[in-house]
Protein backbone atom coordinates (compact mmCIF):
# COMPACT_ATOMS: atom_id res chain seq x y z
CA UNK A 1 0.00 0.00 0.00
CA UNK A 2 1.32 3.46 -0.92
CA UNK A 3 2.15 6.06 1.70
CA UNK A 4 -0.87 8.15 0.77
CA UNK A 5 -3.34 5.29 0.85
CA UNK A 6 -2.06 4.09 4.19
CA UNK A 7 -2.61 7.60 5.50
CA UNK A 8 -6.06 7.46 4.00
CA UNK A 9 -6.63 4.11 5.71
CA UNK A 10 -5.72 5.66 9.06
CA UNK A 11 -7.96 8.61 8.34
CA UNK A 12 -10.77 6.31 7.32
CA UNK A 13 -10.53 4.20 10.46
CA UNK A 14 -10.49 7.40 12.43
CA UNK A 15 -13.57 8.87 10.77
CA UNK A 16 -15.36 5.52 11.07
CA UNK A 17 -14.57 5.35 14.79
CA UNK A 18 -15.74 8.92 15.35
CA UNK A 19 -18.80 7.93 13.40
CA UNK A 20 -19.58 5.12 15.80
CA UNK A 21 -18.92 7.18 18.90
CA UNK A 22 -20.55 10.40 17.89
CA UNK A 23 -24.04 10.38 19.38
CA UNK A 24 -26.89 11.94 17.42
CA UNK A 25 -24.84 12.47 14.26
CA UNK A 26 -23.77 8.87 14.15
CA UNK A 27 -27.28 7.82 15.03
CA UNK A 28 -28.50 9.20 11.73
CA UNK A 29 -25.43 7.87 10.03
CA UNK A 30 -26.10 4.36 11.28
CA UNK A 31 -29.86 4.50 11.23
CA UNK A 32 -30.14 4.59 7.50
CA UNK A 33 -28.84 7.27 5.24
CA UNK A 34 -25.18 7.12 6.15
CA UNK A 35 -25.20 3.45 5.45
CA UNK A 36 -26.54 4.25 2.04
CA UNK A 37 -23.06 5.36 1.20
CA UNK A 38 -21.93 1.80 1.58
CA UNK A 39 -24.18 0.70 -1.27
CA UNK A 40 -23.83 1.36 -5.00
CA UNK A 41 -27.56 1.57 -5.62
CA UNK A 42 -28.64 5.10 -6.64
CA UNK A 43 -32.01 4.51 -5.03
CA UNK A 44 -30.31 4.66 -1.67
CA UNK A 45 -28.71 8.03 -2.31
CA UNK A 46 -32.19 9.36 -2.55
CA UNK A 47 -32.96 8.05 0.90
CA UNK A 48 -32.30 11.66 1.53
CA UNK A 49 -34.97 13.72 -0.10
CA UNK A 50 -32.18 16.29 -0.29
CA UNK A 51 -30.59 14.20 -3.06
CA UNK A 52 -33.89 14.03 -4.94
CA UNK A 53 -33.07 16.77 -7.43
CA UNK A 54 -29.84 15.08 -8.48
CA UNK A 55 -31.47 11.69 -8.52
CA UNK A 56 -34.26 12.84 -10.78
CA UNK A 57 -31.78 14.70 -12.91
CA UNK A 58 -29.63 11.63 -13.26
CA UNK A 59 -32.62 9.53 -14.24
CA UNK A 60 -33.34 11.96 -17.07
CA UNK A 61 -29.65 12.51 -17.88
CA UNK A 62 -27.57 10.95 -20.64
CA UNK A 63 -25.81 8.54 -18.29
CA UNK A 64 -28.72 6.92 -16.54
CA UNK A 65 -28.15 3.70 -18.47
CA UNK A 66 -24.40 3.63 -18.15
CA UNK A 67 -23.28 5.10 -14.85
CA UNK A 68 -24.62 5.20 -11.31
CA UNK A 69 -23.85 7.78 -8.66
CA UNK A 70 -20.82 6.04 -7.37
CA UNK A 71 -19.35 5.50 -10.83
CA UNK A 72 -18.97 9.26 -10.99
CA UNK A 73 -18.75 10.34 -7.39
CA UNK A 74 -16.43 7.80 -5.85
CA UNK A 75 -12.78 7.19 -6.65
CA UNK A 76 -12.00 4.06 -8.61
CA UNK A 77 -8.24 4.01 -8.17
CA UNK A 78 -7.94 1.95 -4.97
CA UNK A 79 -10.60 0.25 -2.92
CA UNK A 80 -9.28 1.92 0.21
CA UNK A 81 -9.57 5.33 -1.31
CA UNK A 82 -13.12 4.48 -2.37
CA UNK A 83 -14.02 3.38 1.14
CA UNK A 84 -12.35 6.45 2.60
CA UNK A 85 -14.26 8.91 0.43
CA UNK A 86 -17.47 6.94 0.95
CA UNK A 87 -16.92 7.06 4.66
CA UNK A 88 -16.06 10.73 4.88
CA UNK A 89 -18.78 11.86 2.45
CA UNK A 90 -21.31 9.66 4.20
CA UNK A 91 -20.16 11.07 7.51
CA UNK A 92 -20.19 14.72 6.32
CA UNK A 93 -23.49 14.51 4.56
CA UNK A 94 -25.19 12.64 7.38
CA UNK A 95 -23.93 15.21 9.85
CA UNK A 96 -24.99 18.07 7.60
CA UNK A 97 -28.34 16.45 7.05
CA UNK A 98 -28.89 15.99 10.75
CA UNK A 99 -27.73 19.47 11.66
CA UNK A 100 -29.37 20.97 8.53
CA UNK A 101 -26.42 23.37 8.49
CA UNK A 102 -25.41 23.08 4.85
CA UNK A 103 -25.66 25.86 2.30
CA UNK A 104 -28.07 25.62 -0.60
CA UNK A 105 -28.01 25.24 -3.49
CA UNK A 106 -25.88 22.19 -2.70
CA UNK A 107 -22.65 22.36 -4.64
CA UNK A 108 -19.99 19.77 -5.20
CA UNK A 109 -16.88 20.29 -3.07
CA UNK A 110 -13.41 20.69 -4.59
CA UNK A 111 -12.22 17.25 -3.47
CA UNK A 112 -15.26 15.60 -4.94
CA UNK A 113 -14.98 17.37 -8.25
CA UNK A 114 -11.46 15.99 -8.59
CA UNK A 115 -12.89 12.53 -8.00
CA UNK A 116 -15.61 13.31 -10.52
CA UNK A 117 -13.31 14.40 -13.31
CA UNK A 118 -11.01 11.46 -12.76
CA UNK A 119 -14.08 9.31 -13.44
CA UNK A 120 -15.05 11.14 -16.61
CA UNK A 121 -11.58 10.54 -17.89
CA UNK A 122 -11.49 6.97 -16.68
CA UNK A 123 -14.42 6.08 -18.89
CA UNK A 124 -13.68 8.44 -21.74
CA UNK A 125 -9.92 8.09 -21.84
CA UNK A 126 -9.94 7.22 -25.52
CA UNK A 127 -12.22 10.08 -26.49
CA UNK A 128 -10.19 12.69 -24.68
CA UNK A 129 -6.68 11.28 -25.01
CA UNK A 130 -5.66 13.90 -27.59
CA UNK A 131 -7.08 16.87 -25.77
CA UNK A 132 -5.57 15.88 -22.45
CA UNK A 133 -2.23 14.55 -23.70
CA UNK A 134 -0.43 17.90 -23.59
CA UNK A 135 -1.79 19.33 -20.36
CA UNK A 136 -4.67 18.53 -18.09
CA UNK A 137 -8.02 20.00 -19.02
CA UNK A 138 -7.96 20.60 -15.52
CA UNK A 139 -9.46 19.89 -12.19
CA UNK A 140 -10.10 21.92 -10.13
CA UNK A 141 -12.88 22.98 -12.46
CA UNK A 142 -15.40 24.45 -10.07
CA UNK A 143 -15.62 28.24 -10.15
CA UNK A 144 -16.41 28.19 -6.46
CA UNK A 145 -12.78 27.16 -6.02
CA UNK A 146 -11.81 30.59 -7.36
CA UNK A 147 -9.69 28.82 -9.97
CA UNK A 148 -9.75 28.95 -13.76
CA UNK A 149 -12.76 27.29 -15.28
CA UNK A 150 -11.49 24.24 -17.02
CA UNK A 151 -12.23 20.57 -16.83
CA UNK A 152 -14.96 18.49 -18.36
CA UNK A 153 -17.90 19.96 -16.49
CA UNK A 154 -17.18 23.41 -17.84
CA UNK A 155 -18.88 22.25 -20.99
CA UNK A 156 -20.55 19.04 -19.86
CA UNK A 157 -22.13 20.37 -16.73
CA UNK A 158 -25.32 18.56 -17.67
CA UNK A 159 -23.69 15.18 -18.24
CA UNK A 160 -24.61 13.97 -14.79
CA UNK A 161 -27.98 15.49 -14.09
CA UNK A 162 -29.26 16.91 -17.31
CA UNK A 163 -29.70 20.62 -17.91
CA UNK A 164 -29.68 22.49 -14.62
CA UNK A 165 -31.38 25.54 -16.08
Amino acid at each position, binding site marked *: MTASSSFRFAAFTASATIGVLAGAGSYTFVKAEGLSYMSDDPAVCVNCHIMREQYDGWRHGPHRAVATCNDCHLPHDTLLNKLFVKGSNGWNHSREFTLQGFAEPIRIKPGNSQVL*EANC*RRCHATAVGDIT*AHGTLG*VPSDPLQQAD*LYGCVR*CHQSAGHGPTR
Partner: protein
Amino acid sequence: NRNVTIRQAEALQTSFMVVPIDETTVDPAQWGKNFPRQYDGYLRTADKYSTTYGGAGSDGMPKSRLEEDPRLVTIFDGYAFAVDFRLRQGHAHMLEDQRTTKRVTERPQTGACLHCHASNTVAYREAGLRHGAPGALTDAFASSSAQQQLMKGFEEICKLPYEEATMLVSHPVACIDCHDPKTMALRVTKPGFLRGIDALAKSGEPLPHLPSIERWRSGDRAKPYDPNTDGSRQELRSMVCGQCHVEYYCGPKATLFFPWNKGLKVEQIEEYYAEYKFANGAPFTDWTHARTGAPMLKAQHPEFEMWSQGIHARSGVSCADCHMPYRREGAIKISDHHVRSPLLDITRSCQACHRFPESELLARVATIQHRTKMLMDRAEDALVQLIDDLGRSKQAGADASRLQAAFALHQKAQWRVDFVNAENSMGFHAPQEAARILGEAIDFARQGQLAVRDANGR
Protein backbone atom coordinates in the same frame (compact mmCIF):
# COMPACT_ATOMS: atom_id res chain seq x y z
CA ASN B 1 0.77 17.16 -8.44
CA ARG B 2 -2.28 14.97 -8.69
CA ASN B 3 -3.51 16.31 -12.05
CA VAL B 4 -0.25 15.46 -13.66
CA THR B 5 -0.41 11.86 -12.48
CA ILE B 6 -3.95 11.50 -13.75
CA ARG B 7 -2.83 12.92 -17.05
CA GLN B 8 0.16 10.64 -17.41
CA ALA B 9 -1.88 7.66 -16.33
CA GLU B 10 -4.77 8.36 -18.68
CA ALA B 11 -3.44 10.19 -21.67
CA LEU B 12 -3.73 7.70 -24.48
CA GLN B 13 -1.21 7.98 -27.26
CA THR B 14 -3.63 8.55 -30.10
CA SER B 15 -1.12 10.47 -32.21
CA PHE B 16 2.28 9.16 -33.23
CA MET B 17 5.52 11.03 -33.83
CA VAL B 18 6.23 9.90 -37.38
CA VAL B 19 8.62 12.80 -37.99
CA PRO B 20 10.72 14.65 -35.41
CA ILE B 21 9.75 18.29 -34.88
CA ASP B 22 11.69 20.91 -32.94
CA GLU B 23 12.19 24.68 -32.58
CA THR B 24 13.52 24.82 -36.14
CA THR B 25 10.48 23.20 -37.79
CA VAL B 26 8.42 26.00 -39.35
CA ASP B 27 6.61 24.09 -42.09
CA PRO B 28 3.14 23.06 -40.82
CA ALA B 29 3.14 20.14 -43.26
CA GLN B 30 5.88 18.54 -41.17
CA TRP B 31 3.88 18.94 -37.93
CA GLY B 32 0.88 17.73 -39.86
CA LYS B 33 2.48 14.35 -40.40
CA ASN B 34 2.29 13.81 -36.65
CA PHE B 35 -1.07 15.49 -36.20
CA PRO B 36 -2.99 14.98 -39.45
CA ARG B 37 -6.42 15.82 -37.98
CA GLN B 38 -5.37 19.24 -36.73
CA TYR B 39 -3.47 19.90 -39.93
CA ASP B 40 -6.53 19.14 -42.05
CA GLY B 41 -8.52 21.72 -40.11
CA TYR B 42 -5.67 24.21 -40.35
CA LEU B 43 -5.63 23.88 -44.14
CA ARG B 44 -9.38 24.46 -44.33
CA THR B 45 -8.93 28.03 -43.07
CA ALA B 46 -8.45 28.70 -46.79
CA ASP B 47 -12.25 28.21 -47.23
CA LYS B 48 -14.25 31.33 -47.97
CA TYR B 49 -17.69 32.08 -46.48
CA SER B 50 -20.05 34.79 -45.34
CA THR B 51 -22.38 35.19 -42.38
CA THR B 52 -24.40 38.38 -41.88
CA TYR B 53 -21.36 40.17 -40.47
CA GLY B 54 -18.62 37.53 -40.55
CA GLY B 55 -16.40 36.21 -43.28
CA ALA B 56 -15.41 38.06 -46.42
CA GLY B 57 -17.57 36.54 -49.13
CA SER B 58 -17.70 33.11 -50.66
CA ASP B 59 -15.53 33.74 -53.68
CA GLY B 60 -12.98 36.03 -55.27
CA MET B 61 -11.29 38.90 -53.47
CA PRO B 62 -12.39 39.51 -49.87
CA LYS B 63 -15.24 42.08 -49.86
CA SER B 64 -14.21 45.71 -49.47
CA ARG B 65 -15.39 47.43 -46.29
CA LEU B 66 -15.06 50.74 -48.11
CA GLU B 67 -17.57 49.70 -50.76
CA GLU B 68 -19.93 48.22 -48.16
CA ASP B 69 -19.81 51.46 -46.13
CA PRO B 70 -18.61 54.49 -48.13
CA ARG B 71 -18.72 56.65 -44.97
CA LEU B 72 -15.41 54.98 -44.08
CA VAL B 73 -13.71 56.73 -47.02
CA THR B 74 -14.57 60.08 -45.41
CA ILE B 75 -13.72 58.82 -41.94
CA PHE B 76 -10.24 57.55 -42.90
CA ASP B 77 -9.53 60.39 -45.34
CA GLY B 78 -5.77 60.90 -45.69
CA TYR B 79 -4.86 57.47 -44.28
CA ALA B 80 -3.97 54.20 -45.99
CA PHE B 81 -7.23 52.61 -44.78
CA ALA B 82 -9.15 54.95 -47.09
CA VAL B 83 -7.33 53.34 -50.02
CA ASP B 84 -7.95 49.63 -49.34
CA PHE B 85 -9.75 48.07 -46.37
CA ARG B 86 -11.38 44.66 -46.65
CA LEU B 87 -13.22 42.12 -44.56
CA ARG B 88 -11.01 39.52 -42.93
CA GLN B 89 -10.92 35.94 -44.09
CA GLY B 90 -9.29 32.70 -42.98
CA HIS B 91 -5.78 32.34 -41.56
CA ALA B 92 -4.49 30.66 -44.69
CA HIS B 93 -4.80 34.00 -46.51
CA MET B 94 -3.11 36.27 -43.99
CA LEU B 95 0.29 36.56 -45.61
CA GLU B 96 -0.91 36.84 -49.18
CA ASP B 97 -3.62 39.36 -48.26
CA GLN B 98 -1.05 41.55 -46.55
CA ARG B 99 1.39 41.36 -49.44
CA THR B 100 -1.28 42.36 -51.95
CA THR B 101 -3.24 45.06 -50.12
CA LYS B 102 -2.88 48.53 -51.59
CA ARG B 103 -2.01 49.65 -48.04
CA VAL B 104 1.29 47.84 -48.72
CA THR B 105 1.67 48.09 -52.48
CA GLU B 106 0.83 51.82 -52.65
CA ARG B 107 2.09 52.97 -49.25
CA PRO B 108 5.51 52.37 -47.69
CA GLN B 109 5.28 49.94 -44.76
CA THR B 110 7.81 48.34 -42.41
CA GLY B 111 8.58 44.76 -41.45
CA ALA B 112 6.57 45.32 -38.28
CA CYS B 113 3.48 44.42 -40.26
CA LEU B 114 4.63 40.83 -40.39
CA HIS B 115 4.29 40.39 -36.63
CA CYS B 116 0.76 39.07 -37.07
CA HIS B 117 0.65 37.87 -40.63
CA ALA B 118 3.27 35.18 -40.75
CA SER B 119 4.93 32.43 -38.81
CA ASN B 120 7.95 34.38 -37.64
CA THR B 121 9.05 32.71 -34.40
CA VAL B 122 12.01 31.21 -36.27
CA ALA B 123 12.52 34.19 -38.61
CA TYR B 124 12.86 36.50 -35.61
CA ARG B 125 15.30 34.19 -33.81
CA GLU B 126 17.45 33.74 -36.93
CA ALA B 127 17.59 37.50 -37.45
CA GLY B 128 18.48 37.87 -33.79
CA LEU B 129 21.33 35.43 -34.16
CA ARG B 130 22.54 37.29 -37.26
CA HIS B 131 22.59 40.46 -35.19
CA GLY B 132 24.67 38.95 -32.42
CA ALA B 133 22.14 37.47 -29.99
CA PRO B 134 23.67 34.54 -27.99
CA GLY B 135 22.93 30.81 -28.26
CA ALA B 136 21.58 28.64 -31.09
CA LEU B 137 18.26 28.24 -32.85
CA THR B 138 17.83 24.86 -31.19
CA ASP B 139 17.81 26.43 -27.70
CA ALA B 140 14.58 25.86 -25.82
CA PHE B 141 12.18 28.75 -26.49
CA ALA B 142 11.99 29.54 -22.78
CA SER B 143 15.78 29.86 -22.43
CA SER B 144 17.09 33.38 -21.97
CA SER B 145 19.28 33.04 -25.06
CA ALA B 146 16.25 32.15 -27.20
CA GLN B 147 14.33 35.09 -25.73
CA GLN B 148 17.20 37.45 -26.56
CA GLN B 149 17.30 36.09 -30.12
CA LEU B 150 13.55 36.64 -30.47
CA MET B 151 13.49 40.22 -29.20
CA LYS B 152 16.63 41.31 -31.04
CA GLY B 153 15.37 39.85 -34.30
CA PHE B 154 11.96 41.40 -33.80
CA GLU B 155 13.49 44.86 -33.35
CA GLU B 156 15.66 44.42 -36.44
CA ILE B 157 12.93 43.07 -38.72
CA CYS B 158 10.56 45.86 -37.64
CA LYS B 159 13.12 48.34 -39.02
CA LEU B 160 13.31 46.75 -42.47
CA PRO B 161 11.18 47.95 -45.36
CA TYR B 162 8.24 45.57 -45.80
CA GLU B 163 9.43 44.22 -49.16
CA GLU B 164 12.73 43.10 -47.66
CA ALA B 165 11.25 41.77 -44.43
CA THR B 166 8.57 39.70 -46.10
CA MET B 167 11.25 37.69 -47.94
CA LEU B 168 12.26 36.29 -44.55
CA VAL B 169 8.93 34.49 -43.96
CA SER B 170 7.05 31.91 -45.97
CA HIS B 171 4.01 30.71 -43.97
CA PRO B 172 0.93 32.25 -42.39
CA VAL B 173 0.64 31.70 -38.62
CA ALA B 174 1.79 28.11 -38.05
CA CYS B 175 1.89 25.41 -35.40
CA ILE B 176 5.17 26.59 -33.93
CA ASP B 177 3.70 30.03 -33.17
CA CYS B 178 1.18 28.54 -30.75
CA HIS B 179 2.65 25.18 -29.73
CA ASP B 180 5.71 23.83 -27.98
CA PRO B 181 7.11 21.27 -30.44
CA LYS B 182 8.15 18.97 -27.58
CA THR B 183 4.93 18.81 -25.57
CA MET B 184 2.41 20.40 -27.94
CA ALA B 185 1.38 22.56 -24.99
CA LEU B 186 0.12 26.00 -25.93
CA ARG B 187 2.53 28.91 -25.81
CA VAL B 188 2.69 32.54 -26.89
CA THR B 189 5.65 33.55 -29.04
CA LYS B 190 4.86 37.02 -30.42
CA PRO B 191 7.08 39.78 -28.99
CA GLY B 192 4.31 42.37 -29.13
CA PHE B 193 2.10 40.24 -26.91
CA LEU B 194 4.89 39.26 -24.51
CA ARG B 195 5.65 42.95 -23.93
CA GLY B 196 2.00 44.00 -23.93
CA ILE B 197 0.87 41.45 -21.34
CA ASP B 198 3.86 42.37 -19.16
CA ALA B 199 2.77 46.02 -19.23
CA LEU B 200 -0.82 45.00 -18.53
CA ALA B 201 0.19 42.85 -15.57
CA LYS B 202 2.10 45.84 -14.12
CA SER B 203 -0.96 48.10 -14.54
CA GLY B 204 -3.49 48.56 -11.74
CA GLU B 205 -6.44 47.44 -13.90
CA PRO B 206 -8.46 44.59 -12.31
CA LEU B 207 -8.42 41.51 -14.55
CA PRO B 208 -10.97 39.01 -13.19
CA HIS B 209 -10.81 37.08 -16.45
CA LEU B 210 -7.04 36.54 -16.20
CA PRO B 211 -6.68 35.03 -12.71
CA SER B 212 -3.03 34.09 -13.19
CA ILE B 213 -2.18 37.80 -13.50
CA GLU B 214 -4.14 38.57 -10.33
CA ARG B 215 -2.19 35.76 -8.65
CA TRP B 216 1.14 37.13 -9.92
CA ARG B 217 0.24 40.61 -8.67
CA SER B 218 -0.43 39.31 -5.17
CA GLY B 219 2.98 37.58 -5.18
CA ASP B 220 6.43 39.14 -4.65
CA ARG B 221 6.73 40.14 -8.35
CA ALA B 222 10.40 39.16 -8.23
CA LYS B 223 10.20 37.82 -11.80
CA PRO B 224 8.05 39.62 -14.41
CA TYR B 225 4.74 37.95 -15.30
CA ASP B 226 5.34 35.19 -17.86
CA PRO B 227 2.23 33.91 -19.66
CA ASN B 228 4.01 30.72 -20.71
CA THR B 229 4.80 29.65 -17.16
CA ASP B 230 2.32 31.63 -15.02
CA GLY B 231 -0.65 31.50 -17.39
CA SER B 232 -3.14 28.65 -17.08
CA ARG B 233 -4.02 26.46 -20.02
CA GLN B 234 -7.46 28.03 -20.15
CA GLU B 235 -5.97 31.52 -20.32
CA LEU B 236 -3.58 30.44 -23.06
CA ARG B 237 -6.56 29.26 -25.09
CA SER B 238 -7.30 32.98 -25.46
CA MET B 239 -3.81 34.46 -25.23
CA VAL B 240 -2.61 32.65 -28.35
CA CYS B 241 -5.25 34.64 -30.20
CA GLY B 242 -4.43 37.80 -28.27
CA GLN B 243 -1.04 37.68 -29.98
CA CYS B 244 -2.68 39.29 -32.99
CA HIS B 245 -6.36 40.07 -32.48
CA VAL B 246 -5.59 43.30 -30.67
CA GLU B 247 -5.25 47.06 -31.05
CA TYR B 248 -1.68 48.05 -31.88
CA TYR B 249 0.68 50.77 -33.00
CA CYS B 250 2.62 49.64 -36.02
CA GLY B 251 4.39 52.41 -37.88
CA PRO B 252 7.78 53.96 -38.62
CA LYS B 253 7.94 56.18 -35.51
CA ALA B 254 8.32 53.44 -32.86
CA THR B 255 8.67 49.68 -32.60
CA LEU B 256 5.32 47.87 -32.82
CA PHE B 257 3.57 47.82 -29.42
CA PHE B 258 0.24 46.97 -27.75
CA PRO B 259 -1.03 50.00 -25.75
CA TRP B 260 -2.07 48.10 -22.62
CA ASN B 261 -0.13 49.98 -19.93
CA LYS B 262 -3.27 51.42 -18.34
CA GLY B 263 -5.71 48.62 -19.11
CA LEU B 264 -7.72 47.22 -22.00
CA LYS B 265 -10.74 49.56 -22.06
CA VAL B 266 -11.22 52.01 -24.92
CA GLU B 267 -10.67 55.08 -22.71
CA GLN B 268 -7.64 53.56 -20.97
CA ILE B 269 -5.92 52.99 -24.31
CA GLU B 270 -6.89 56.51 -25.39
CA GLU B 271 -5.39 57.88 -22.18
CA TYR B 272 -2.15 55.95 -22.75
CA TYR B 273 -1.81 57.34 -26.26
CA ALA B 274 -2.55 60.83 -24.95
CA GLU B 275 0.47 60.60 -22.60
CA TYR B 276 2.72 58.71 -25.05
CA LYS B 277 5.55 60.62 -26.74
CA PHE B 278 7.54 59.42 -29.74
CA ALA B 279 11.36 59.34 -29.54
CA ASN B 280 11.49 62.80 -31.15
CA GLY B 281 9.23 64.10 -28.37
CA ALA B 282 6.23 64.49 -30.66
CA PRO B 283 2.85 63.56 -29.15
CA PHE B 284 1.28 60.28 -30.30
CA THR B 285 -0.91 60.24 -33.40
CA ASP B 286 -1.50 57.85 -36.30
CA TRP B 287 -2.23 60.48 -38.95
CA THR B 288 -3.74 63.89 -39.59
CA HIS B 289 -7.24 63.87 -41.04
CA ALA B 290 -7.17 65.23 -44.61
CA ARG B 291 -10.52 66.99 -44.45
CA THR B 292 -10.41 68.45 -40.96
CA GLY B 293 -6.71 68.58 -40.10
CA ALA B 294 -7.42 66.94 -36.72
CA PRO B 295 -4.81 64.51 -35.32
CA MET B 296 -6.29 60.99 -35.50
CA LEU B 297 -6.01 57.59 -33.81
CA LYS B 298 -6.60 54.36 -35.73
CA ALA B 299 -8.18 51.38 -33.96
CA GLN B 300 -7.48 47.87 -35.24
CA HIS B 301 -9.36 44.64 -34.45
CA PRO B 302 -9.48 44.88 -30.63
CA GLU B 303 -11.05 41.41 -30.26
CA PHE B 304 -8.95 40.50 -27.25
CA GLU B 305 -9.71 43.83 -25.58
CA MET B 306 -13.46 43.66 -26.24
CA TRP B 307 -13.73 39.99 -25.27
CA SER B 308 -12.05 41.03 -22.01
CA GLN B 309 -15.01 43.32 -21.22
CA GLY B 310 -17.63 40.65 -21.88
CA ILE B 311 -19.43 38.10 -19.77
CA HIS B 312 -17.83 35.17 -21.56
CA ALA B 313 -14.32 36.20 -20.56
CA ARG B 314 -15.45 36.61 -16.95
CA SER B 315 -16.95 33.17 -17.15
CA GLY B 316 -13.68 31.63 -18.27
CA VAL B 317 -14.85 31.08 -21.84
CA SER B 318 -11.88 31.30 -24.18
CA CYS B 319 -11.56 32.23 -27.86
CA ALA B 320 -10.76 28.61 -28.64
CA ASP B 321 -13.93 27.41 -26.92
CA CYS B 322 -16.01 29.14 -29.58
CA HIS B 323 -13.69 29.39 -32.55
CA MET B 324 -11.91 26.05 -32.21
CA PRO B 325 -14.57 23.85 -30.60
CA TYR B 326 -13.84 20.25 -29.88
CA ARG B 327 -15.04 17.98 -32.65
CA ARG B 328 -15.24 14.23 -32.65
CA GLU B 329 -13.26 12.42 -35.30
CA GLY B 330 -13.89 8.73 -35.08
CA ALA B 331 -13.49 7.72 -31.49
CA ILE B 332 -11.55 10.75 -30.36
CA LYS B 333 -12.03 14.46 -29.80
CA ILE B 334 -9.77 17.12 -31.20
CA SER B 335 -9.75 20.90 -31.34
CA ASP B 336 -11.16 22.04 -34.65
CA HIS B 337 -8.27 23.91 -36.24
CA HIS B 338 -10.57 25.26 -38.89
CA VAL B 339 -10.72 28.61 -37.11
CA ARG B 340 -13.79 30.51 -38.35
CA SER B 341 -17.15 32.01 -37.39
CA PRO B 342 -18.84 29.96 -34.66
CA LEU B 343 -22.14 30.63 -36.38
CA LEU B 344 -21.15 28.02 -38.94
CA ASP B 345 -21.03 25.34 -36.24
CA ILE B 346 -23.41 26.37 -33.45
CA THR B 347 -23.78 22.80 -32.25
CA ARG B 348 -20.15 22.46 -31.24
CA SER B 349 -19.36 26.11 -30.58
CA CYS B 350 -22.30 27.04 -28.39
CA GLN B 351 -24.59 24.18 -27.57
CA ALA B 352 -22.19 22.35 -25.32
CA CYS B 353 -22.78 25.19 -22.87
CA HIS B 354 -26.11 26.59 -24.00
CA ARG B 355 -28.93 24.10 -24.16
CA PHE B 356 -31.05 26.14 -26.53
CA PRO B 357 -31.99 25.28 -30.12
CA GLU B 358 -29.63 26.43 -32.85
CA SER B 359 -32.29 28.81 -34.21
CA GLU B 360 -32.60 30.47 -30.79
CA LEU B 361 -28.84 30.90 -30.41
CA LEU B 362 -28.60 32.36 -33.90
CA ALA B 363 -31.44 34.75 -33.02
CA ARG B 364 -29.58 35.89 -29.88
CA VAL B 365 -26.48 36.70 -31.86
CA ALA B 366 -28.57 38.44 -34.52
CA THR B 367 -30.31 40.60 -31.89
CA ILE B 368 -27.00 41.67 -30.33
CA GLN B 369 -25.35 42.36 -33.67
CA HIS B 370 -28.37 44.21 -35.05
CA ARG B 371 -28.52 46.52 -32.02
CA THR B 372 -24.80 47.20 -32.41
CA LYS B 373 -25.06 47.86 -36.15
CA MET B 374 -28.00 50.27 -35.78
CA LEU B 375 -26.17 52.26 -33.12
CA MET B 376 -22.94 52.19 -35.12
CA ASP B 377 -24.72 53.59 -38.18
CA ARG B 378 -26.07 56.37 -35.97
CA ALA B 379 -22.57 57.09 -34.66
CA GLU B 380 -20.95 57.05 -38.11
CA ASP B 381 -23.60 59.46 -39.45
CA ALA B 382 -22.89 61.86 -36.59
CA LEU B 383 -19.16 61.54 -37.17
CA VAL B 384 -19.39 62.16 -40.90
CA GLN B 385 -21.58 65.23 -40.26
CA LEU B 386 -18.95 66.57 -37.87
CA ILE B 387 -16.25 66.00 -40.47
CA ASP B 388 -18.35 67.85 -43.06
CA ASP B 389 -18.94 70.78 -40.68
CA LEU B 390 -15.25 71.00 -39.81
CA GLY B 391 -14.27 70.68 -43.45
CA ARG B 392 -16.65 73.45 -44.47
CA SER B 393 -15.53 75.91 -41.82
CA LYS B 394 -11.89 75.20 -42.69
CA GLN B 395 -12.62 76.07 -46.31
CA ALA B 396 -14.55 79.13 -45.09
CA GLY B 397 -11.18 80.04 -43.59
CA ALA B 398 -12.07 79.74 -39.90
CA ASP B 399 -8.74 79.85 -38.06
CA ALA B 400 -7.70 76.52 -36.59
CA SER B 401 -7.04 77.94 -33.12
CA ARG B 402 -10.77 78.45 -32.60
CA LEU B 403 -11.46 74.86 -33.73
CA GLN B 404 -9.19 73.11 -31.19
CA ALA B 405 -12.14 71.95 -29.08
CA ALA B 406 -13.83 70.52 -32.16
CA PHE B 407 -10.63 68.78 -33.26
CA ALA B 408 -10.30 67.07 -29.88
CA LEU B 409 -13.94 65.95 -30.04
CA HIS B 410 -13.43 64.66 -33.59
CA GLN B 411 -10.57 62.46 -32.36
CA LYS B 412 -12.48 61.14 -29.34
CA ALA B 413 -15.61 60.37 -31.37
CA GLN B 414 -13.76 58.70 -34.23
CA TRP B 415 -11.56 56.62 -31.91
CA ARG B 416 -14.69 55.12 -30.37
CA VAL B 417 -16.63 54.51 -33.58
CA ASP B 418 -13.53 52.93 -35.08
CA PHE B 419 -12.94 50.76 -31.99
CA VAL B 420 -16.33 49.09 -32.42
CA ASN B 421 -16.24 49.01 -36.22
CA ALA B 422 -12.74 47.52 -36.34
CA GLU B 423 -13.71 44.90 -33.75
CA ASN B 424 -14.85 41.87 -35.67
CA SER B 425 -17.82 40.44 -33.79
CA MET B 426 -20.24 43.34 -34.42
CA GLY B 427 -20.63 43.72 -30.70
CA PHE B 428 -21.10 40.08 -29.76
CA HIS B 429 -17.93 39.76 -27.68
CA ALA B 430 -19.19 42.43 -25.26
CA PRO B 431 -22.66 43.67 -26.22
CA GLN B 432 -23.26 46.31 -23.57
CA GLU B 433 -19.69 47.62 -23.71
CA ALA B 434 -19.93 48.06 -27.50
CA ALA B 435 -23.18 50.01 -27.08
CA ARG B 436 -21.68 52.12 -24.30
CA ILE B 437 -18.70 53.06 -26.48
CA LEU B 438 -20.99 54.02 -29.36
CA GLY B 439 -23.16 56.12 -27.04
CA GLU B 440 -20.08 58.10 -26.05
CA ALA B 441 -19.01 58.38 -29.70
CA ILE B 442 -22.36 59.92 -30.62
CA ASP B 443 -22.09 62.40 -27.76
CA PHE B 444 -18.58 63.54 -28.74
CA ALA B 445 -19.43 63.81 -32.45
CA ARG B 446 -22.54 65.95 -31.83
CA GLN B 447 -20.70 68.07 -29.26
CA GLY B 448 -18.08 68.60 -31.94
CA GLN B 449 -20.73 69.95 -34.30
CA LEU B 450 -21.94 72.29 -31.56
CA ALA B 451 -18.35 73.41 -30.95
CA VAL B 452 -17.95 74.25 -34.64
CA ARG B 453 -21.12 76.35 -34.65
CA ASP B 454 -20.17 78.09 -31.43
CA ALA B 455 -16.60 78.70 -32.66
CA ASN B 456 -18.00 80.36 -35.77
CA GLY B 457 -19.73 82.76 -33.35
CA ARG B 458 -23.02 81.11 -34.15
